[in-house]
């Protein structure tokens, strides 16, 4: 277990030091992770978003800028307000990546169930045709 966490951390560290603006850099910072979590429930304007944090609004703006460069969120200005929303496509990459390593038995069993259903119905069809 510990090895797994170390391995993930090292992976993330390598990705961060490579300074790539991608999803992995986006989630390397706890504030940015919290922003992603908040925005994945609903889009918010910057002021509302900043209210969830102890740190200053400019500091949040800075993190928003990084997230935008990582293509994880997008911002839209309306008058004096800035609206932030999630771009789910990038987050999906992260989910896909992590899925390979997590012992998601439940997903495996769900995949198995889907396959059993498919197999069962294809056998039924064949049987029906034979009649």
């Amino acid at each position, binding site marked *: *277990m510990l*090895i*797994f966490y170390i*391995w993930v951390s090292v992976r993330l560290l390598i990705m961060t030091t490579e300074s790539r603006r991608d999803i992995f850099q986006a989630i390397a910072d706890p504030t940015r992770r919290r922003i992603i*979590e908040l925005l*994945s429930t609903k889009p918010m304007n910057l002021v509302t978003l900043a209210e969830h944090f102890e740190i200053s609004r400019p500091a949040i703006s800075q993190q928003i800028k990084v997230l935008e460069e990582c293509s994880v969120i997008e911002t839209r200005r309306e008058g004096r307000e800035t609206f932030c929303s*999630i771009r*789910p*496509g990038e*987050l*999906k990459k992260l*989910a*896909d990546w*992590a*899925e*390979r*390593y*997590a*012992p*998601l*038995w*439940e*997903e*495996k*069993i769900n*995949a*198995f*169930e*889907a*396959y*059993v*259903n498919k*197999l*069962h119905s294809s*056998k039924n069809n064949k049987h029906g045709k034979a009649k």
Partner: protein
Amino acid sequence: MEKLNEIDKRVLTIKKTFDAPRRIVWEAWTNPDHIIHWWAPSGMKIQVLCHEFKVGGQWKYSMPMPDGSEFISEGVYSEIDEPSKIVTSANFRPMTEGVTIHVLFEEENGKTHFTFSVVHPTEEYCRQQEKMGFYNGWGSAFVRLDEFVGSAGVEE
């Protein structure tokens, strides 16, 4: 009784009822021609390196990673009672090691009650795995994200 309780603390169990007769569920679970279709997470492929379906027989699947490495799942069958029970050791390095998987198949009115249990060597390890796979913030976040991506994907 104490012993049973003690084992309970080290087990993660998933129960399902499949709308298919037991022989089909058994076949899908045990035949490598079928296993390759459901074992790997979506978008990934697996290769069956070995599949000796007998007591003491080894199974070993490989999943190639995008970075060129291979992810190996393997184990040894310790009990096969066709068509109702399979027990096997299992290693999914690097994240799950030294667990025992018990799979039970019970038929009732053309449906199959399916019980999948993962027995961990210690309670602590079980809790860690549980957090990681089921209740961990990331785990549940991914489920939500998947739903979110699924619904947002239509617009994209």
